[in-house]
């Protein structure tokens, strides 16, 4: 974000006054147009996913469920256990990096179209408009003293907001605890105290953030907004006012020729300010508060159309393009981000694809190195930890290899492990000392599911014995 020459240098006092001024409520005017349509589409799609997806079932269970009470995550056919922690971490890193890449390419498009704060504020604004009417009607209503009518309208709005928020809270909890059961508990008034708490907590957060805080969340709370400028460069897509074309701004008759009047294309109708959800004037240059939602583009294009001027006085562009240069999409930082992303994503896919939902740990008994049996065999004692990370109970068969005539002694021939549980199995291995090449030898334990063919794993352990006599 390099210097764009400001027409009126703002004195420090004004800046400070700006910093400290009491927040004034912003009444964004409703806007129609291509970007508004895209925004609405994104909103409907994202809200649809949020509210709808938890209800979708897959193979007998909730398709996507970060099942906290059961400590396992279902993502369609895949079930992750706490042991799979690394996948989730990887996924979060990929998500963060994608946002970086996206920001370098398209600026704050994320903010304007996909950020939950924007999406929920949009739906709350939509409710507000349905109940209170247009921008003018809302401003008029707020200026009126309290009356029965005003109270009724305000109460209606807040009631709808609250119900919607509670439903949001319910859905949110439904991502983390089976939603069908939750629904059943809700309608039978048997919701657990903790579930109730989190529904209310998240519901209250939604109501507060989308109903009251709104753009203040972006300004004071969003960490992304604060460092995104570091990811901007001259080739980043942003919403900008074409100063060269627009200035000097000023009102005029539709029939008048602006050139004759010495005016630019901006008719100073302030519509771009009225539609802005964060209440800024895009004509002042690129601003920290601009979330790139393009409401000002839509409305300005409409005005330009009416005036018979070409569209695009406010438009998506880049700093380079504004200067009349060519915009480079492929540039070093894009390549670096993409490469890292591609690598991480491949790693994730590979890891998930080759993941064996079975773990075998071999723990040697720490108290003795080895025993000698009455028959002169060398015995080692182990505890095996078998983790069954599949969705079904499994029966496993254990076998041994690596040393000749090794004898495996366990309580039972088969190891039964319930779904998602860790089973401890004490075992003994006995070997004739003649078959031990040295005092420390590798043995291999092989675990194979009898229930689910192909589910198997091999782990190497140490077998200790006396120094071989030469």
């Amino acid at each position, binding site marked *: 974000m390099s210097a764009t020459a400001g027409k009126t240098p703002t004195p420090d006092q004004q800046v400070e006054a700006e910093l400290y001024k009491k*927040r004034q409520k912003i009444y964004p005017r409703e806007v129609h147009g291509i970007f508004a349509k895209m925004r609405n589409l994104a909103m409907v799609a994202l809200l649809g996913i949020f509210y709808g997806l938890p209800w979708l079932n897959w193979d007998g269970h909730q398709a996507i469920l970060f099942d906290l009470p059961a400590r396992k995550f279902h993502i369609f056919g895949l079930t992750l256990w706490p042991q799979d922690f690394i996948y989730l971490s990887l996924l979060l890193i990929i998500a963060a990096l994608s946002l970086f890449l996206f920001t370098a390419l398209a600026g704050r498009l994320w903010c304007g179209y996909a950020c939950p704060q924007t999406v929920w504020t949009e739906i709350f604004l939509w409710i507000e408009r349905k109940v209170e009417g247009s921008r003018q009607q809302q401003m008029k209503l707020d200026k009126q003293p309290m009356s029965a009518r005003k109270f009724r309208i305000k109460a209606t709005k807040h009631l709808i907001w609250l119900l919607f928020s509670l439903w949001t809270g319910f859905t949110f909890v439904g991502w983390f605890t089976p939603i069908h059961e939750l629904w059943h508990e809700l309608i039978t008034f048997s919701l657990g*105290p903790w*579930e109730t708490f989190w529904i209310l907590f998240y519901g209250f957060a939604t109501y507060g953030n989308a109903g009251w805080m709104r753009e203040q969340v972006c300004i004071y709370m969003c960490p992304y907004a604060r460092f995104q400028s570091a990811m901007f460069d001259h080739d980043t897509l942003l919403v900008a006012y074409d100063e060269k074309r627009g200035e000097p701004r000023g009102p005029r008759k539709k029939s008048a020729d602006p050139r004759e009047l010495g005016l630019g294309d901006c008719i100073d109708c302030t519509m771009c300010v009225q539609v802005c959800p964060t209440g800024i004037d895009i004509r002042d240059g690129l601003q920290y508060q601009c979330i790139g939602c393009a409401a000002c583009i839509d409305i300005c294009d409409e005005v330009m159309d009416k005036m018979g001027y070409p569209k695009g006085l406010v438009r998506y562009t880049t700093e380079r393009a504004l200067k009349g240069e060519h915009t480079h999409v492929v540039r070093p930082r894009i390549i670096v981000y993409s490469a890292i992303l591609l690598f991480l994503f491949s790693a994730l896919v590979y890891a998930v694809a080759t993941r064996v939902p079975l773990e075998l740990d071999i723990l040697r008994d720490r108290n003795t190195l080895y025993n000698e049996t009455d028959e002169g065999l060398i015995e080692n004692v182990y505890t095996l930890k078998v983790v069954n990370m599949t969705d079904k109970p499994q029966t496993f068969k254990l076998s041994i290899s690596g040393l000749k005539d090794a004898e495996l002694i366990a309580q039972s021939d088969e190891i039964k492990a319930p779904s998602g549980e860790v089973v401890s199995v004490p075992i003994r291995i006995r070997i004739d000392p003649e078959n031990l090449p040295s005092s420390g030898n590798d043995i291999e334990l092989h675990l194979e599911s009898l229930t689910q063919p192909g589910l198997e794993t091999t782990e190497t352990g140490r077998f200790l014995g006396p120094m071989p006599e030469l």
Partner: protein
Amino acid sequence: MQKNPTIYKDQQELPTIQRVISVLWPSFLVASISTFLFFAVFDPIDLGRLAGYPELTRIGGYTIGFFFFWVMTAFSCGLTCYFRKPVHPPTIK
């Protein structure tokens, strides 16, 4: 606004909303991360049993853990604001 604000005053004049957010919000984020990391290792059921509350549910354990972390981090964020106040001018008159 006062004309020749001392630094001490200036800090006080951050918008109230920002002062509240700067304590509660980072602590909320860090408490969430802590909860995620902590309970990836420990099962609240086990912890409940150790602490003498065998009937604690997992959701209950997560909630208690989260709020324990949040209270602690928010408290320490609050103290940071306290310790960032410029020390009184050398002479108290």
